[in-house]
C-alpha cells in the first residue's frame, strides 16, 4: 500500500509597486545598502505606517486572477517576534482578515489546487553574516508581499512544479510581480505530510524560504521518503520547521525556538479598518489583463500546438506582441518567426522576457502574409526577417534594396526556358525517367533568380514546359 504525498504551499511574492507598503521609499533598490530607507523603515520611535493603495490593487488583482473572493473589510495585525531584520519587532500582516479568500488554480489535468487565502504583509530587511559580524540592510524592509496559501491539495512533485509555474505565469501576466525565484521576488514555504488513502492527515513538516523549483522538487522527494521510512520503522515524526540543505538535497530540523513561537497577534492600532468598496473592485476587474489560460486557449483555437502556445505565453511581452500580430497575420508563420529566428536572436531568457526588438507586430504580420501568399518564399522571408531584426527596416524595403525584386511570371517562364536549353544532359536524364534530374534544372533557375522564386511553383512550370516541348 503506497503512501500519498500531501503537500501545500505558502508562497511569498514581492509586489512590483513603486513604493513600499507602509512608507514612500522606492522599492527598486540599487546596490547601495540602506539607500532606500526612511525613519519608518528602521522603526525610529514616533514613526507610523501609511498604507500604499497600489498594494491593495495588486493584491486584489491577484485574487481576481485566481478566482478568490475579495474581502470587503480588512485590517492589519501585528505579528510580534524579535529578529534583527525586523525593526519594529513586529511584522504588519493580515492574520484574521486576509484580503482574498477561497480561490483556486486549475492544473492541465483538470485538478483543482485550492487557494485558502491571499494576504498582504511587509518584507524584512537583509542580513549578511561575515565572520563575527552581521551586516543589516533595510532596503528590502517593508517591501510589500502577498502570501498565497494553498490547501494541501498537491499530491505529486509534477503537480507541485505545475502549480508554482502556473502561479508565476498568472502573477507575471497581471503584472503584479516579476516572480523571479532566483532574485528572491518569489519564495516558498513547503508543507509536506504523508498518509494512506482514507486515513487522517499525517504529521506535517515545513521547509521554509525555498527559492528554486528544482530544490523544491528535491526537498519534497526527500521529505516524502523521510516521512514514509519513519512511519514504516515506527519512528516519531514531529511537526516542525526544517531547513533544506542544498549540498545534498536533504533537510534538517531547525532550532526549537522557531517551532514554538507565540506571535501574540492583535489588531494594529496605527492603521484604521479599511473598507474595500464594490466600485474599487469593479474598476480593478475591468482593467485586469487577459489571463494566461485564456490566452493559451485562444492560441490553441487558432491552430497552434500546446508546446507553441506554452512558449508564447511564458512571457507577457511575447504574448502581447503575438496577440497583436495575429490580428492581421498568419498565426502559424508568426509563431515560427518568434519561436525560431527571433528567439534565436534573443539568446537569454532575460532578453526573451523583455522582448525588445526593432520589428513591430504590424511589420511582422505583413511579412507573414507575404510568405503565406507566396509573394516571397520561406527562405527569403527568413533572410528578410533577419535583416528587419537587425535594422528595423520593413521587408519591402529590404527586398527592393537588395535588388531582390519579384520575378514576374513571364520572366519566370523565360528563365525556365533558358534552364531547359542549357541543361540538355539533365533534360535527357529526366526524359529517360530519372526524376531527380529535374532538380538540376530547377537549381539553375534558382541560381539565376537568386532564390527569389517559389521552388514548387517553378518545378511545376518546368514540367509543363518540358511536356509541352516534348
Amino acid at each position, binding site marked *: 500500500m503506497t503512501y500519498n504525498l500531501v503537500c501545500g504551499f505558502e508562497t511569498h511574492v514581492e509586489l512590483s509597486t513603486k513604493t513600499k507598503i507602509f512608507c514612500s521609499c522606492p522599492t527598486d533598490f540599487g546596490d547601495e545598502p540602506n539607500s532606500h530607507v526612511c525613519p519608518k523603515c*528602521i522603526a*525610529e520611535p*514616533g514613526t507610523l505606517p501609511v498604507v500604499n493603495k497600489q498594494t491593495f490593487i495588486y493584491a486584489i488583482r491577484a485574487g481576481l486572477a485566481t478566482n478568490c473572493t475579495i474581502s470587503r473589510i480588512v485590517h492589519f495585525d501585528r505579528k*510580534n517576534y524579535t529578529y534583527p531584520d525586523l525593526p519594529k519587532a513586529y511584522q504588519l500582516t493580515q492574520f484574521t482578515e486576509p484580503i482574498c479568500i477561497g480561490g483556486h488554480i486549475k492544473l492541465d489535468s483538470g485538478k483543482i489546487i485550492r487557494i485558502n487565502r491571499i494576504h498582504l504583509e511587509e518584507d524584512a530587511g537583509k542580513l549578511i553574516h561575515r565572520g563575527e559580524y552581521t551586516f543589516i540592510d533595510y532596503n528590502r524592509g517593508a517591501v510589500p508581499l502577498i502570501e498565497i496559501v494553498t490547501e494541501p491539495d498537491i499530491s505529486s512533485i509534477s503537480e507541485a512544479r505545475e502549480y508554482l509555474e502556473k502561479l508565476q505565469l498568472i502573477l507575471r501576466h497581471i503584472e503584479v510581480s516579476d516572480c523571479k525565484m532566483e532574485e528572491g521576488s518569489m519564495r516558498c514555504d513547503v508543507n509536506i505530510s504523508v498518509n494512506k488513502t482514507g486515513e487522517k492527515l499525517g504529521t506535517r513538516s515545513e521547509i521554509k524560504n525555498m527559492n528554486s523549483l528544482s530544490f523544491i522538487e528535491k526537498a519534497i522527494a526527500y521529505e516524502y521518503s523521510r516521512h514514509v521510512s519513519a512511519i514504516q520503522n515506527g519512528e516519531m515524526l514531529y511537526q516542525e520547521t526544517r531547513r533544506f540543505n542544498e549540498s545534498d538535497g536533504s533537510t534538517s530540523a531547525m532550532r526549537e525556538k522557531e517551532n514554538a513561537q507565540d506571535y501574540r497577534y492583535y489588531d494594529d492600532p496605527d492603521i*484604521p479598518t479599511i473598507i474595500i468598496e464594490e466600485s474599487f473592485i469593479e474598476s480593478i476587474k475591468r482593467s485586469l489583463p487577459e489571463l494566461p489560460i485564456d490566452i493559451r486557449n485562444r492560441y490553441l483555437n487558432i491552430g497552434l500546438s500546446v508546446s507553441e502556445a506554452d512558449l508564447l505565453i511564458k512571457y507577457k511581452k511575447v504574448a502581447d506582441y503575438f496577440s497583436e500580430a495575429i490580428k492581421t497575420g498568419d498565426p502559424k508563420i508568426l509563431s515560427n518567426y518568434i519561436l525560431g529566428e527571433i528567439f534565436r536572436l534573443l539568446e537569454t531568457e532575460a532578453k526573451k522576457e523583455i522582448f525588445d526588438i526593432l520589428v513591430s507586430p504590424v511589420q511582422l504580420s505583413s511579412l507573414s502574409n507575404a510568405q503565406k501568399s507566396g509573394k516571397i518564399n520561406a527562405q527569403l522571408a527568413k533572410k528578410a526577417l533577419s535583416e528587419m531584426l537587425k535594422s528595423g527596416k520593413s521587408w519591402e524595403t529590404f527586398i527592393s534594396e537588395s535588388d531582390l525584386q519579384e520575378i514576374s511570371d513571364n520572366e519566370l517562364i523565360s528563365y525556365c526556358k533558358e534552364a531547359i536549353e542549357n541543361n540538355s544532359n539533365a533534360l535527357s536524364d529526366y526524359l529517360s525517367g530519372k526524376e531527380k534530374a529535374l532538380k538540376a534544372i530547377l537549381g539553375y533557375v534558382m541560381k539565376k533568380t537568386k532564390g527569389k522564386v517559389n521552388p514548387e511553383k517553378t518545378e511545376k512550370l518546368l514540367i509543363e514546359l518540358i511536356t509541352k516541348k516534348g
Partner: protein
Amino acid sequence: MSKILYYSNLLKTGKISSSELTKIYLDRIEKLNPKLNAYIRVLPEYALAQASKCDEILSKDKSSSPLTGVPMALKDNLSVVGLHTTCCSKMLENFKSTFTASAVKKLFDKGAVMLGKTNLDEFAMGSYCNTGIFGPARNPYDLEKSPGGSSGGNASAVSAGIAPYTLGTDTGGSTRQPASYCGIVALKPTYGSVSRYGLLTLASSFDQIAPMTSTVTDCAIVYDAICGHDPDDMMTFKRKYEPTYSQLSGEVKRLRIGISDDFLSSSSEETIESVMKAVDFYVSKGAEIVKVKLPHIKYALPIYYILGCAEISSNFGRFDGIRYGYKTSLQYKDIDDMITKTRTEGLGKDIKRRIMLGIYFLSKQNYKEYFQKASMMRNELIRDFSNAFETCDLILSPTSPTSAVSLDFTPETIVEKYYADACVAPANLCGLPALALPCGIGQNGMPIGMQLMGPNFSEGTLLNAGYAFEKECKPELKPSIGVNYDL
C-alpha cells in the same frame, strides 16, 4: 487673560521683540529651573535663532498667527529633527531624532520659538514625574511635592512662568493630572484630531499630544494650531476642524452638565467641595445638571491597563540597541543575549513591568480572557459614554482624587496608584476630549483641578465652558516659586 495674546500684542505693536522676549524667558529658566528641574534641556541658541527669524517675519507681516514669536517648551518625547529626544530614559539618552513631529512642525510653521525640552516620567509612564533619568521635576506650589506625571516638567514650567505654554502628551491622564497638581490648563484632544507622528509612542490607541497652558484661551489657540488631518498619521480624521477660539463666548445657559457619582466617590473632601462649587457656578449661569450613570466604569481601569500594557509591550520591542539607542557594554554570547542585556540595563523598572504584563495579556493562553475581553468591554464603555452624552453636553468631574502628593510618596501597592487615574483614564480609553482646569485651592494653597469631558470633537464646547468658569471664578493661586505673568 491669555498669555499668548498678551505677548502677541506686545510683539506686533513692537513693544518687545521675540528675541527679547525669548531672552527674558531664558533668564527666568536659568534662575528657576535648578530648583524646579522642569526643563531637562534648555536650548538658548536654537531658541534665539528661531526668535530672530520671527522678528523678521513680524517686521513685515502683522497678520501672522498669534503664536509667532511666542516661546514655548516641548515634552521630551516629542521629536524635533537634529535634537535629542530622550524620553528621560537611559535607552534614548544619546538619541537624536531624524524628523520633526507633525504637530510640532505646525507650531514651528506658525513661528513658535522652542525654549527647550521638559522633564517627564521615563517614557511617559508614571504619575509623579520622578522616574526619569534627569531626576524629578518639582511643583512650584511646594517644592517637596510632585508636579504630577508624566508631563510634570510641562506643568511645572507653565505654572512657574518659565514657559508661556507647552505641548505635552496624554495617554492616561498624563497632562490633565499634572495640570491639576500645578494649577494650569490642559486639553486632551479627541483621539485622531491631532497627529501622533513624531510622538514617541507609548500606547498607540490612547496617546494624544495635548496643549498645556496658563489659560483656557491659550489652550484653544494652541489646539486650533495643531489639530487637523495628517497624511503621516492614518488615524487622524479628515474633516472640517472649526476653530475653537471663535467659540469662546462664555455663554453656558442651558448647557447640560453631567455628574457621575462614580467619579466623585474616591475623591478627597476638599476636592469634592471645590468641584461642587464649580457646579454651583454653572447652575448660577443657567446650566442644567444631569445625573449620569456609567454602568461599566468600574471596569475602566482594568481594561485600560490590560490594553495599555499590551500595546506598550508591542511598541517597545524595537528597543534593541541595533539601529539607535543604548547598547550594552558587557560581554554577550549571542545577539539575543546582547539585546537582553541592553534592554535590562536601558529600561526602567516601570517599563519592564508593563512590557512583561503586556506579553502576559497577549499570550495565546491569556489572549481571550484578558485582551479580547478588555477590547469588548472597551466598546461597552464607549457605549456608556455615548448614552450619557445623549442626556448631557459634557461630564464634569475631579481630575485627581487629591491635590499634589509628596515626591516621596510611594503607594502601598501598584494598583493603589492606578486608582488615582479613575477620572482621567476613561477619556483615553474611549478617545474622548477632556479639559482640565483649576477650580479651587486646597489645604496649604495647593491647586485643585476639575475635568470637563465631552463627546468626540466637542473641544469647542469644553473650552467654552472652561472659559466661562475661568473668566469669573479662576482660583487665586500663588505658586511659592515663580513669577506672575506680566512682563
